[in-house]
C-alpha cells in the first residue's frame, strides 16, 4: 500500500460526482459568507462568542448535566442515560417494547447514525423509517450519508428516480419536484401509522430543559404531531446554559448550514403535549448518549465537542470538495469528521488515523466554523498522537534526510546549490519515488532558494546591529 486509504478512495471517485459535490458546496459557502457579513455588524464576534459559550458549557458538564436532568423531570420528561451505542439502542427498544410499539418514524439525527439505530431496530422486528428526504433515499438504497446536512449530495436525480421506481413509488421520473411529492405522499401516511417519533436535538437549554430541533422539511414537526410517543437521542455535548444563548446559536446555525437566515421549522420542545392539545406525544423520553464523548472531553481535542453539526467546514474544505464524504469512512466526514471520527473510534483509532492527515492545514474550516473550533490545531494534535502510537503512515516520505540537512549548515548550503541545478533537470528524471509521484500531477515552481540568506547577509553588512 503506497498511499492513505482516503487518497485511494479519491482516485476511484467518478468525475461527475466530484464536480457536483464541488459545485454545491461552493455555492452554499459563498451564500453563507454574504449573508453573515451583510447583516451583522460583527459576525466574527458572534462566532467567537458562540465558541466561548460552548467551551464554558463543556467544561461545566459535571454540573450542567444533572441540572438539565432535574429540569426535564419537572417538565414531565423521562430521562435515560446510555454510555455506549449498544446501551442507547437497548434503551430505545425498551421504550418501544413497553408500549408494544413496532413502528417508528425518524427525523434526521447524527447520533442515530452513530449507533446504527435503524438497523438495530429492524433486526428486532421494528420498523424505523427515515423521514428526512435525503435520509429516506439513503435508507432505501442501503447507502450512507455523505454530508452532515445534505446526506445525498453524492447522488444524482437519475439515481434517485431509479430507486423510487424500484421501491414502487411510481414510474421513473427524475424531476426533483415529482420525487419530493411522491415522498410526501408516501411518508405522511407513515407518520400517521407510527407509534413512536424519534428525533435528535440541535441544542438543549439547561435553564428550561428545552430541546431545540431545526428542520427545513418539517419532518420532525410531523414526527411530534402524529405519534403518541417521542424519543429524543441527545449527545451529552448538546447543552447550552440559558434560553437566551439560543438566539445566538440559531442565527449562526441556519446561516452556516444552508445559508438561510433561519431554518424553516425551529421547535422548542420541553415535554409531552399539553392536555388540551389533541395531537402529539403523551410521553416523552430523552436519552443522553455518551458513546465516546467523555473520552473526547478528557482528550486535548475537547474543543471539537463544541460542534453544532452545521457542515460549513465540509463546504469550504478543499479536501472534502475533491474527496466527498464517503472517503472519510465514518459517520462524520470533512474537517469535523477528520477530528471527531478517529476520536470516537476509541480502539479503532489507527484505522482512521489517516483522516487528520488529509488536510493542507489551510485553516478555512476554522475561519467558517460558527463555534470557532481550531480544527487545524486539533488535526496536528491527532497527527502527533498517531506518531506517538506508531501508527503506520503509508505514502509519507521519510523525513530523516530533511532533518539532517536542516540541522547542518554545510549540508544546507550544498542543498541550496543542488536546488539550483534541479531547475535544469525535468522533475520526472529525479530518482526519488515520492518526488515522482508528487510531480506527476503538479508542476514545481522555479527554485529560488538562498534568497533569504543573501538578503540577511546584505542587511547585516549595511547596518550592523549592536
Amino acid at each position, binding site marked *: 500500500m503506497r498511499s492513505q486509504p482516503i487518497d485511494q478512495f479519491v482516485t476511484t471517485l467518478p468525475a461527475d460526482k466530484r464536480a457536483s459535490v464541488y*459545485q*454545491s458546496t461552493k455555492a452554499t459557502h459563498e451564500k453563507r459568507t454574504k449573508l453573515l457579513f451583510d*447583516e451583522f455588524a460583527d459576525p466574527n464576534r*458572534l462566532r467567537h462568542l458562540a465558541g*466561548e459559550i460552548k467551551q*464554558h458549557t463543556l*467544561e*461545566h458538564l*459535571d454540573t450542567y*448535566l*444533572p441540572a438539565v436532568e432535574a429540569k426535564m423531570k419537572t*417538565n*414531565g420528561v423521562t430521562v*435515560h*442515560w446510555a*454510555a455506549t451505542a449498544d446501551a442507547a439502542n437497548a434503551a430505545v427498544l425498551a421504550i418501544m417494547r413497553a408500549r408494544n410499539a413496532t413502528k417508528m418514524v425518524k427525523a434526521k439525527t447524527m447520533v442515530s447514525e452513530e449507533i446504527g439505530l435503524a438497523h438495530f431496530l429492524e433486526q428486532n422486528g421494528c420498523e424505523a423509517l427515515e423521514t428526512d*428526504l435525503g435520509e429516506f433515499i439513503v435508507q432505501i438504497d442501503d447507502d450512507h450519508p455523505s454530508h452532515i446536512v*445534505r*446526506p445525498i*449530495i453524492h447522488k*444524482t436525480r437519475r439515481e434517485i428516480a431509479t430507486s423510487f421506481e424500484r421501491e414502487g413509488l411510481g414510474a421513473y421520473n427524475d424531476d*426533483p*419536484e415529482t*420525487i*419530493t411529492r411522491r*415522498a*410526501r405522499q408516501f411518508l*405522511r401516511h407513515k*407518520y400517521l401509522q407510527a407509534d413512536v417519533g424519534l428525533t435528535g436535538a440541535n441544542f438543549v437549554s439547561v435553564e428550561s430543559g428545552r430541546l431545540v430541533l431545526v428542520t*427545513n*422539511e*418539517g419532518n420532525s*414537526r*410531523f414526527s411530534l*404531531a*402524529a405519534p403518541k410517543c417521542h424519543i429524543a437521542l441527545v449527545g*451529552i455535548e448538546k447543552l447550552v*446554559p440559558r*434560553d*437566551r444563548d*439560543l*438566539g445566538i446559536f440559531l*442565527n449562526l446555525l441556519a446561516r452556516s448550514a444552508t445559508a*438561510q*437566515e*433561519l*431554518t*424553516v*421549522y*425551529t*421547535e422548542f*420542545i*420541553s415535554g409531552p*403535549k*399539553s392536555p388540551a*392539545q389533541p*395531537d*402529539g406525544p403523551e410521553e416523552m423520553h430523552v436519552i443522553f448518549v*455518551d458513546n465516546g464523548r*467523555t473520552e473526547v472531553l478528557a482528550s486535548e481535542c475537547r474543543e471539537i465537542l463544541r460542534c453544532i453539526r452545521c457542515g460549513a467546514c465540509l463546504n469550504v474544505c478543499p479536501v472534502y470538495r475533491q474527496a466527498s464524504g464517503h472517503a472519510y469512512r465514518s459517520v462524520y466526514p470533512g474537517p469535523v469528521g477528520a477530528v471527531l471520527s478517529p476520536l470516537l473510534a476509541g480502539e479503532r483509532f489507527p484505522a482512521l488515523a489517516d483522516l487528520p492527515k488529509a488536510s493542507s492545514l489551510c485553516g478555512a474550516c476554522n475561519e467558517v466554523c460558527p463555534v470557532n473550533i481550531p480544527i487545524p490545531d486539533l488535526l496536528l494534535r491527532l497527527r502527533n498522537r498517531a506518531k506517538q502510537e506508531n501508527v503506520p503512515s503509508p505514502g509519507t516520505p521519510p523525513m530523516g534526510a530533511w532533518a539532517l540537512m536542516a540541522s547542518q549548515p554545510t549540508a544546507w548550503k550544498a542543498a541550496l546549490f543542488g536546488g539550483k541545478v534541479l531547475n535544469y533537470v525535468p522533475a520526472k528524471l529525479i530518482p526519488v519515488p515520492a518526488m515522482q509521484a508528487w510531480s506527476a500531477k503538479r508542476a514545481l515552481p522555479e527554485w529560488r532558494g538562498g534568497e533569504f540568506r543573501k538578503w540577511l547577509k546584505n542587511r547585516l553588512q549595511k547596518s550592523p546591529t549592536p
Partner: protein
Amino acid sequence: MNDDRESILSRVRGALAPLHERAALPDYDTEIAVMRSLIAGRDLAEVFTERIKRVSGLAVADPAALVAHLRAGGWLRGYCDPALWPQLAPHFGPEFKVEVDYDRTRVDDYAFGITRAAGAIAESGTIILNDATTSRRLAALAPWVHVAVVGRGQIFADLPQAVAAIGGDPNVIWCTGPSKTADVEGILIEGVHGPGQQIALLVD
C-alpha cells in the same frame, strides 16, 4: 441504565478534574445577534410582511384577500379552528367547504388549515405557533396551505425578544416560510412534509 448515569457522570468529572481553570460563561448583549438596521424605527407589521415574503411566505392584511388567494389557488376544502370560524365564515363563499373538526384519517382532504398563531417575528418573517393557541398540530402541518391568524400586537421585533417570550408552553414552533428541501441535486423544492404555502393573516 442507572449504572450508565453514574458511569457517564463520573467520566465527565474525571475528564474535567485535570483542568486548572475552567472557561467562564461570557457576558454579552443579545443585541449583537440582531439585524438592527432592518427593524429600527419601523412598523413591525410592515417589516414582518416584507420579510415573510423573502422566505416565500405571504402576509395578508384582511380576510377578503385571504379568501381571494385561496380561491385563486383552487384550495376550496379545508379546516378552520372552531374558535376562529365565526368571524371568518362570512368572508368565505359557498364554493368553500370548511370543517371545524379535523379528522386525521382524511388528512389529504384538507387543502388548507387555519389556526391561531401565538405571535410572529418581524426580523425573520417567522410565524410562532404553540400548543395553547394551535387547535390541532396536524391541521397546521398536513394541509398544503397553512394560514396562521396573527394579531398585529403579537409581533416581536427580533429573535432574542421572541426567545425571551417562549414561556411555559411545551411545544413552541417557529415557522419561517413553507416547508422545503434542497436534497435532490441542491434544487429548492417547497412543500415537503409540511405546507407548501405559509400564510399569515394579520388581524387587529
